[in-house]
């Protein structure tokens, strides 16, 4: 039995409770199902942002290809749903009934082999977790074992995101092309487009998110979490202490990939389609900004950052579409130059001391305000992130 206190301080329990109350009580009470569904969609990005906190904020590995894993998870789910809605009866007007409509449009006459297993829900659910993990493992093992890191890793993951997008768009007959996989209706006969289903999916998504947060908290408070921070700050010293640095990096990269994939699968379920516009370079780097705005060191911050940026995006791009890109660009610059620790950094330095005093009756500590000393960002010169000689 794990002792609760050992991995969740009182502040963290409070943060979790506040988030739970916000997601499960405040939001459903104050919004109609359309807006709630939108929030649900934003929250699926939060899975990616939480993964990035572990990977980038704590581990110092910036991946610009998280959209790849989000997309893999989303496409796995979408393939299953598409097959279910493409029964021979429903697609009787096609020249080949029983295959997804976009395949028929592209003169494909039988289901490709890699679509076959997605007839099974069990396989699909396993694939959502395993496919991205495997893919991340291959990338991670190839790069980290050769001590490629930092900037190079970012550029190569970005290139992979670009490659996958071009591939999906190019192979229209197998992937649905630029439109993606659309017109998803039922899950095991359960209509996912009804309002009831949207409520259920929203709560399922919220519960998964909280579960993931607890899991991440556990990872961060374990020895692994401490090692991650250590190898972000002084990788060589961790290596000299006898740890195999590459394995820890591979693990955290795969973990973040799996989280992204869960987000992607939930996205497909709630929004009802999946397309390459959630895979490529632009969405991947936007997911990094969600994480950066929330605070790259705080998993709770990442959730709030995602909600805030997406809410701003929806509001501004509805009313002033021209201003939004200026705003987003300025946000990128500001979050780097002005407040590198994001919302959670602002909270820690301005609000946390008061909260500690009023709720936990803790005397304010000199400046550090109860923050975990590990959470101070390391903006020392990064060890030259060059490949091994």
């Amino acid at each position, binding site marked *: 039995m794990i002792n609760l206190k050992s991995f969740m301080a009182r502040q963290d329990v409070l943060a979790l409770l506040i988030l739970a109350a916000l997601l499960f009580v405040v939001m459903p009470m104050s919004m109609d199902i359309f807006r709630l569904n939108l929030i649900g969609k934003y929250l699926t990005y939060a899975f990616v942002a939480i993964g990035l906190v572990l990977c980038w904020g704590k581990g110092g590995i910036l991946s610009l290809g998280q959209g790849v894993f989000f997309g893999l998870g989303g496409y796995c789910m979408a393939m299953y749903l598409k097959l279910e809605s493409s029964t021979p009866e429903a697609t009787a007007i096609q020249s080949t009934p029983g295959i997804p409509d976009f395949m028929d449009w592209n003169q494909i006459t039988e289901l490709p082999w890699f679509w076959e297993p997605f007839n099974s829900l069990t396989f699909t659910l396993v694939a959502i977790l395993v496919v991205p993990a495997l893919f991340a493992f291959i990338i991670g093992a190839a790069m980290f074992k*050769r001590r490629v890191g930092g900037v190079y890793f970012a550029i190569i993951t970005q290139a992979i995101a670009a490659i996958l997008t071009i591939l999906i768009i190019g192979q229209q007959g197998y992937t649905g092309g630029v439109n993606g996989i659309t017109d998803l209706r039922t899950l095991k006969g359960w209509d996912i487009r009804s309002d009831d289903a949207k409520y259920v999916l929203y709560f399922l998504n919220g519960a998964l998110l909280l579960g993931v947060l607890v899991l991440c908290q556990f990872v961060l408070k374990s020895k692994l979490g401490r090692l991650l921070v250590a190898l972000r700050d002084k990788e060589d010293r961790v290596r000299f202490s006898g740890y195999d640095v590459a394995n820890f990096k591979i693990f955290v990269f795969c973990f973040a990939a799996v989280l992204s994939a869960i987000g992607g699968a939930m996205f497909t379920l709630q929004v009802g389609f999946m397309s390459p516009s959630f895979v490529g370079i632009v969405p991947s780097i936007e997911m990094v900004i969600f994480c950066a705005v929330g605070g790259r060191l705080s998993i709770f911050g990442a959730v709030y950052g995602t909600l805030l940026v997406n809410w701003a995006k929806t509001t501004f791009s509805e009313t002033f579409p021209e201003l939004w890109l200026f705003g987003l660009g300025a946000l990128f610059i500001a979050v780097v*130059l002005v407040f590198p620790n994001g919302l959670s950094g602002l909270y820690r330095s301005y609000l946390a001391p008061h909260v500690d005093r009023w709720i936990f009756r803790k005397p304010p500590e000199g400046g550090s305000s109860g923050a975990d000393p590990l959470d101070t960002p390391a*903006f020392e010169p990064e060890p030259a992130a060059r*490949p091994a000689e």
Partner: protein
Amino acid sequence: MFADYTWTELGSIFAMQGFAGLILFSVFVLMALGLAIIFGQMGVINMAHGEFMILGAYVTYLCSNFVEAFVPALFGVYFFFAMILAFFTAGALGALVEWSMIRHLYRRPLDTLLATWGLSLILQQAYRSIFGAREVGVTLPDWLLGSVPLTDIIEIPINGIFVMVLTLVIAVSVYFLMFRSRTGMQSRAVVQNRVMAGAVGINTEKVDRMTFALGCGIAGVAGSAFTMIGSTGPTAGQLYIVDTFLIVVFGGAASLLGTIASSFAISQAQSTMEFFLSGSMAKVLTLLTVVGILMLRPEGLFSAKIRR
């Protein structure tokens, strides 16, 4: 895929695609040279590099319109003024960006990446607001139109030749500037050891700004050359940025020669495959090969032989 063609046909196809590849190669080299200076030498990731290139393209477009309307007599040679103007405009913007943003971030390369991405979004939207979302093209003077017939089936467009000559001239000048001049020596010294360079009396801040501005200026010239073979839109720069970064990394980040070699390899591979496969598959295969090779040989083609 080769079976359907005879040997002579294959020869002509390779020659023609090879030439098309050379034009792509010129664009890649021009973009990658600027980036090789900024990223390879300074270690700064400039995601807005494509937008600096597009700035050069728009400057050329404005010049072309201006000359056509007011001094039509000079229309034949406007391109040379436009290129110089593009160089200085992009360079000036680069110096401004370095002063306001980049110099605070030299120690945080990953953060530079995010900040310059933000800059690229702002520039894109600015172009869209000023020039409109539609692509614009320049009118070429008469002497650049037409083509030279080489054999019966192979023809070479003149503007392509011009762009290639231009690339050669710029590549040679960059080489002299970086490796044979005092400025270049100073900037390489600052890159190798900032503290020691400062100690021997080099004004490192000034050198940083100049180097960054030079890289951006070359991007501006690249944009200027780009207008001759394609039209310019607000987001055209973003299409090339990933390729360009891959080229620089693939070539070995610190090596200008490597940058040129890898531009050549990538552009030729892509252009030759494009004839036999669809354009998107050619690009996927090329990029996948590059990423694959980089995973096996992370230091790129030409690695710097220095101890770190």
